[in-house]
């Protein structure tokens, strides 16, 4: 099994005619994902490779029965694209786009919760259930099916960790990039809960970074409600305070968000926290 997506998931790509959207639509298709359509307003009727393009999500859902959408739309239009997906019967939206203002996300977060629509991201690499389905931009070939669940705020650092896992024959059930922004649609806790329930997930890798208190929240949840083994790595231990380190959410400010507090909270919850990403396979 896996969480969120599997071989049956029907996916559409919003922003499919852009440079990144078209490249990754075809890469997902090639991986085996059921990419059933794409959406770019005004370009309905065209195709990208073999994928039909629609003008609206409504139209795409009606014609293809899609339940999942991946958003490559530029930041200025991405919140409306997510809203359109949510209003058209899509139940899982994955937003790759970086640079959405935090206050737009605050509004969107509560709107989507009210509608019962799950959002992964924004500013994330997406989700992959190896061997079954890839909804995102990660290189598919580094993954292999198995029993490790991976949750991360980062993109490329997740690939790094997965690469090491696969080299050591530790396959993955599902890998989820939750996004590097201060406010994301789905956090560690909800995914820990799903992995804890998933029968095919034996252990969980949590990749965190400086900024905010999401890792501390995850630690308190693990302490009470996760019985599977959790191994963690926290990025940014040498980051200077007060500087935004690439991700909008990665900043140590007003005395909070530092790596040491996160490491301490996770260790207190019984999580093995390693110093280098390549030590993760040793602990599983």
């Amino acid at each position: 099994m896996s969480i969120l997506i599997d071989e049956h998931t029907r996916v559409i790509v919003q922003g499919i005619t852009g440079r990144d959207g078209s490249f990754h639509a075809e890469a997902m298709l090639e991986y085996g994902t059921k990419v059933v359509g794409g959406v770019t307003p005004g370009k309905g009727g065209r195709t990208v490779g073999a994928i039909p393009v629609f003008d609206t999500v409504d139209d795409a859902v009606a014609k293809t029965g899609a339940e999942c959408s991946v958003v490559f739309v530029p930041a200025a239009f991405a919140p409306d694209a997510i809203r359109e997906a949510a209003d058209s019967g899509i139940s899982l939206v994955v937003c790759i786009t970086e640079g959405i203002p935090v206050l737009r996300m605050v509004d969107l977060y509560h709107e989507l919760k009210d509608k019962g629509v799950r959002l992964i991201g924004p500013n994330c690499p997406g989700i992959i259930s190896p061997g079954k389905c890839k909804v995102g931009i990660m290189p598919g070939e580094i993954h292999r099916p198995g029993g490790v669940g991976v949750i991360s705020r980062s993109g490329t650092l997740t690939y790094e960790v997965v690469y090491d896992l696969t080299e050591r024959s530790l396959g993955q059930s599902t890998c989820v990039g939750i996004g590097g922004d201060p406010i994301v649609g789905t956090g560690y806790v909800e995914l820990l809960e799903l992995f804890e329930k998933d029968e095919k997930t034996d252990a969980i890798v949590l990749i965190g970074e400086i900024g905010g208190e999401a890792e501390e929240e995850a630690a308190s949840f693990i302490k009470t409600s996760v019985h599977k083994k959790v191994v963690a790595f926290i990025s940014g231990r040498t980051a200077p305070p007060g500087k935004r380190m690439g991700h909008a959410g990665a900043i140590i400010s007003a005395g909070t968000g530092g790596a040491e507090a996160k490491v301490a909270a996770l260790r207190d919850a019984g999580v093995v926290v390693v110093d280098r990403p390549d030590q993760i396979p040793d602990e599983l």
Partner: protein
Amino acid sequence: MVKGQVLTGGRGKAGAIKVVSSQAEAESAAEKILGMSVKGFIVEKALVTERLDIKAEYYAAITVDRRAKAAILIISAAGGMDIEQIAEEKPEKIRRFVMPADNDEALRKWLAESFEDRGLLDQAFQIAQNIYRLFREKDCSLVEINPLAVTAQRRLIAADAKIVFDDSGVPQHPELAELRNADEYTADEIEAREAGLSFVSLSGEIGCMVNGAGLAMATMDCIKLAGGRAANFLDVGGSSNPQKVLDAMRILLRNEQLKVILVNIFGGITRCDDVAQGILWAREQLGITLPIVIRLIGTNGKKGRDMLGKAGLIATRRMGDAIDQAVACSGGGSL
């Protein structure tokens, strides 16, 4: 009063705030203040303002609470000191309210616990609504009034304020870009931002070019564990473009302390052939004499490594190997 305007605290102690009682005194105070340095910041502007007879000081702010996933209004009766200090010394005095209020009455009722006097409450209510509007309209991450002063005449005055804007909101508010204070950033950081790169200057010798913020931070952390020192944080960004790699290389090379360049790329949305192209352009156009250690895998990885190989550059597949090699080149570590 004549108050020097700089983006740092401690102005009073530095002598950049003076009390005056005539035009002549104001002129001479301004002459002294303008051009003086406060914690390395040169005073270029001064504000002439009414002297307040302050009876009490509050702290008021609106910011985004990541846990509540909402904007929150923060009020403390212990104003005047900074919020970290209040949090440490008088945490019980900090009150938080999730915005927007369901209705005006709920906000008034909440404020009434901090502002008992009816006159002050009316003013506080108006201020809370105004700063929330500013916060929303200009996509702020912080609007802070500290101190929010109570004068002898029972007026509430914003005696000092600080506003932080969300970088992601700036494209929609181009007027805000003009307010950016150049002194806060190094020349390299400013050039990097203009090139669409995320860059932070550090003090070591290993110039880093990495894709993705998490991996870039992890690279810095692992360099330190291996006994070396990173010269910078640099995320070449999500989108794939050889020009960005060239720009990044140009910015790295401005740092004269550099002994080696470490390129650590794990392609996803970034395609390794684009990165290889950028590195080759950089070598052609910038005359690089420093050693370059390259780690290149992921999307189109083989194509990228082959392009570099043909040009006589070796790219490794493992991050640990690349880091050890770079640390050795920088003269640090155990190798």
